[in-house]
């Protein structure tokens, strides 16, 4: 079973994402911000990361840049999941090493399609 780290400061979003991803057979680890997410990655790198952009302490963009510099940090497939839905943000995310990008609001169909796109399903 693959592990997905869900990083979002909203407990509601984390709950929705967990429900969707568990139905797609993922084991879920949660983090509320970039710092917690980095701690989780230092303990064990997940196969997938569903990542919000705007969060307190450390945002998703900064987390991604640090993750990609960690040993083995190039391995997890990172799918941004954010309300930032303009070309400039998407381009920045891809440049920083994101594999896919979900624009909120999302549903199971979109998450499934994006995870398929990057070979996680």
């Amino acid at each position: 079973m693959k592990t997905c780290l869900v990083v979002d400061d909203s407990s509601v979003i984390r709950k929705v994402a967990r429900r969707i991803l568990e139905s797609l057979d993922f084991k879920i680890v949660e983090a509320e911000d970039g710092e917690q997410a980095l701690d989780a990655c230092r303990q064990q790198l997940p196969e997938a990361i569903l990542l919000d952009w705007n969060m307190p302490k450390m945002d998703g963009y900064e987390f991604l840049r640090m993750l990609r510099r960690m040993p083995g940090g190039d391995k997890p497939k990172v799918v941004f999941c954010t309300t930032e839905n303009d070309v400039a943000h998407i381009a920045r995310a891809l440049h920083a090493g994101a594999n896919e990008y979900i624009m909120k609001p999302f549903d199971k169909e979109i998450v499934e399609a994006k995870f398929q796109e990057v070979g996680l399903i």
Partner: protein
Amino acid sequence: MTPEDFDYLRKMLRERSGLVLSVDKQYLAESRLLPLARRHGFASVGELVAQLKMPSCTLATEVVDAMTTNETFFFRDKIPFELLRDSVMPALLAARSHTKRVRIWCTAASTGQEPYSIAMTLREMGARLAGFQVDILATDLVVGALDRARNGLYTQFEVQRGLPIQLLIKYFTKVGEMWQIAPELRAMVQFRPLNLLYDFSTLGLFDLVFCRNVLIYFDQSTKVSVLDRIARQMPDDGFLILGAAETVVGLTEAFTPHPDKRGLYRPSNAGAPARLGAPKLAVRA
């Protein structure tokens, strides 16, 4: 709606669009036609059907449109577009090296996601298409769907179904809350209303025909008729791509399934198969 009304509706849909509505689908007709009935001031679907029976009624097209499934998304099923890029186009580019022209027909284009996925696939092939003219004709029964297709405007939800994010930012522009496909891609596709039940021999020959997820709505004899007439619009070394749940097997001998590539078919009378890249792709002559 009475059982008699439903029978009348089923017959009308079959005659006009080929759509086969089974007897247990009355709920579907009710749910899809009630908004249309209300829009035209009828209290029920039964009243709408009563109006349809009048010789002067002009609502039949709207009823067919409402009953037709327009479900589609970008790069649906993925494999057909990989076939297009890796097998079909390389073979056609080699076979058409003198004419430098390839014609593609998308028979059930709906709101445009399939023909634009074809256009994006071709664009991504880059220099390999240099010097070639590739025409994409996209047809559909539903005029309203084609209007949307021509505009090339899609919701945030639609551009997140099947479309890789790199292609979204490469080929689309954000217009308010919508995303619009680039003018150069819109220019690659010609949209045109067409009913597959009627003669389409004037369209000319096509090297590749996408006929996906439309045959499933037809009865056996309509499927055979459509496939046989498509075969007549193709050169011997052409290609046909059907939907994942569709086949020619048991329907017609006009096409032969490709031995290795699911969903890909060649005209059976292919005397001189196009030169395909890998030997295992060679088709039966």
